[in-house]
């Protein structure tokens, strides 16, 4: 019982961390981003996925935070963001389950991405429009969030979000193997 409570608490914290992370990305001004050296996807590929020149920042992992790449593209008042987190885990399945719980019951398993992966739409998450994927390659757990501030964004339609997050996931998991 205590174990499950601990897991629940961790899961809740994880959910909150991811959500806050997404919010932070929205709030982060692009001008403060440093030269990108993201190990899992290059800036040109991220730019292609976001529909224009994207700027990115890489933050290495700390004992408390996963490593993080965030790419942002601004276009006529619309902000599109691709965020990737990666962390190593002693219990990657449990960790994947924890980070993937953001999707709740809407999670869909995704085949042939890493060892295993799942994804869901972020529609309805506090007026966020986007897609989320979580997966793992061996003991490395990753999350990918692709989102836009514009509802019914013609560049990031629901189909496009699915297609583009899949491309991003192949890049990320491929580089993690």
């Amino acid at each position, binding site marked *: 019982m205590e174990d499950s409570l601990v897991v629940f608490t961790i899961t809740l914290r994880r959910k909150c961390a991811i959500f806050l992370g997404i919010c932070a990305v929205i709030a982060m001004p692009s001008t403060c981003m440093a030269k990108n050296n993201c190990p899992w996807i290059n800036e040109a590929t991220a730019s292609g996925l976001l529909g224009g020149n994207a700027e990115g920042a890489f933050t290495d992992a700390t004992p408390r935070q996963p490593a993080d790449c965030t790419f942002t593209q601004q276009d006529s008042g619309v902000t599109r963001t691709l965020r990737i987190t990666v962390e190593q885990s002693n219990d990657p399945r449990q960790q994947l389950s924890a980070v993937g719980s953001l999707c709740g019951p809407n999670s869909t398993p995704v085949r042939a991405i890493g060892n295993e992966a799942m994804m869901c739409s972020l529609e309805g998450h506090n007026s966020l429009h986007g897609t989320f994927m979580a997966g793992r390659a061996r003991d490395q757990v990753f999350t990918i969030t692709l989102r836009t501030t514009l509802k019914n964004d013609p560049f990031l339609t629901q189909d496009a979000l699915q297609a583009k997050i899949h491309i991003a996931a192949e890049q990320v998991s491929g*580089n993690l*193997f």
Partner: protein
Amino acid sequence: MSRTSSTILFAAGVFLCGHMSNFALAQQDATTLTPPPAYTPLPKNTPPVEDTPEQREAIANWKAKAEQKTLIDRKAFNESVTPSYDFHYGKSNPFLPGNVTVQGEGFIQPGAFPTAEYCGTCHQEAYSQWRQALHSNSFRTPFYRTSVNLLIRDKTRGIAFARHCDSCHNPIGVLGAALTEDSKVDRANFDADGLTCTTCHSVIKLDSTNGNASVQMGVPSVMVDENGDRIPGQVSFAMILRHPERHSKAVMHDFLRTPEFCAACHKANLPATLNDYKFLRAFTAYDEWQQSKFSQRNPLTFYTADFTTCQGCHMKRAANTLPDYGAKNGTFASHRWLAGNTAVPFYYGFDEQLNKTIGFLRAGNFLNVDIFGIEISTGDEKPDTRKLIAPLGKVSYTLAPKDLVTAYVVIQNKNIGHSLIPEVRDLYEAWVEFTVKDADGKEIYHSGFIKPNGMLDSRAHSFTNRPVTDAGEFVDNHKVWTIHSVAYDNSVPAGRSVLVRYQFHMPDETNGAVIVTAKVNYRHLRQSYLNNIFGKDHPDYPIVEIASRSRVLKIGENQPEAADPSDNADWMRWNNLGIALLDQFQYAESIQAFHEVVKLRSDYADGYTNIGLTEILWEKYGSARTAIRKALFLEPDNARAHFYDGLLQRRLGNTAQEISDFRKVVEMFPQSRDARRELGITYYQQNDNPAAMKQFEALQKIDPDDLTAHYNLSIIYRRMGKLKEAADQQAMFVDKKTDPGAPTYSLDYLRTHPEISTESIPWHLHSDMVTTTAIGMKGDERDGR
């Protein structure tokens, strides 16, 4: 993870597949393609349509614009990527250690390659097959990425070195300057397509049969104009459908149908530019084919067959189920390239490709498994007094309880055009599973089982190899640049056979029987490599039984029995035993087996040649001459017999006859590397340098790595004053010849792996009496089998 739980996981995975994101699966077939434009193929032999002057002008204008745009785009692309590109091997070698080159100057922008979806609009059958095939997935799979990532992350190497691998696995990435630190190239449009349509179909020239992508890539084009000049980039479907013959001319070069085209990537070496050591041959399915009966270029094969190319087996024509304007008479050359890889379709959930791959492995009559004979012993007599009872099924014999039985299992690589197993044999896994069960199904002996952790029985007879580092450690994870030697290689060349001996005890019962079964199984990939990729918690990857044979051995009297339809004829069974014993250096027994062949087929010239060649190897030249003379009496124009006669004439000093023999073979088989080599040596010994040079140069065209050619040409060229050419040949000889220190690395490995050491000895025995030693366990754990 236990096998049970992993099987359950796999089953759950299959179940969940139906509930998975449809996106990934939708990308894997033709359902997302645009419907093909309307088109009615013209009747055969209809001449191409004539263009009006206006139409000609329109095409000329299109071409001019396309050329200008391609040029401008390429220039701009080069200006953007060149400054930050790592020219590790110098400005003039942007793609080394790969051998690929490109038409024109500099890199070529990835966008210049029309996409598979564009091609797939009219070629839906080809697209849907390709999407599930190895070629489209040549880069993105975890099986490849894990390996190449190790090279990229290696502290003394890096991504520039990965051009060696990606030249074949991701040529658009290599030619498009993506393989450099801080790449400026958007990879989204080519990584997932690997070898897309317009990579193979844009090749304009084969540079050599050196492998490592020895081709010249043209600026991609799907049309030529009326003069046959290529029009770069995409064109409208209407333009193609009006002139399908011009489309064909642009994308269907004759060499696409040749094995030499496949050689570009199905032949690989590890050059010093990669390993900082020396040239090492990695694999060469092409040369194995060229030496097989299917090429009809080698007179020395044990059997003959109709000419069959790589494409003949791996791109068989079949009725198309989807619209494809490239189809002829409703059939299309398969773009599935069915072969042995079950791992990729298993990972991606390509069930059709997986099932067809399994069907291909099982259906081809590729192997013959023959439980050929037994030796019976009470255990007290001397080994050399034991008698071989053979061929089983044709002879009577009696077995007693507790008898010690040694079964001779002969496995023939019967109809594979390359070795069993080919190419990356440090990762692929084929082995013999041998079981002896009593009448109740109780296991008496089992070799080649799978352990609970998924590893193969460390004492199994496997058709694999063990590359090792200079520290004598097994290169378990395909870090090919660390390979310095190969501790052993138990693969079976095309057309040859192997004898595997299994020893077991009959049950202690007064009557009853045992069922003896020998199977050849295949797994793609080795479990420890799968563990390297995924960690240990991955589902079980498929194990495919390629061929098998069972026989019942009764305690008491055993009578002859009817042959199985898949059994070889008796003479061939003996012949295969002879071949297998020859390869195990058991010359006396081999000759005995070949004598049984000619007893059954006294008109079979090759039977006598087999006796002769074995005696040559045994240095019994007198009796060898008798056998070869008999072969030539039966078939005066038998090139194989003439070749061995040439060797015998050399020993006798009959130079004229020696030359006559080898010349005859060369005339009949101009691409026989052995005949060219021997004739070259003969001329060289006669100081006929021009004639020797001609032979060695011809040999080098057949096999660019032949050491004899390098060595002799270096001397001949020097004598002829061609000093640069001589130096080049000398350098290649030094680079390619075996490092004399390399065997010590192998020995270091074998010393600590006794179970592998046993396998490395040509004559060895698998026995139910072997116990695992402490050091054996250590080796077992270390090499991950």
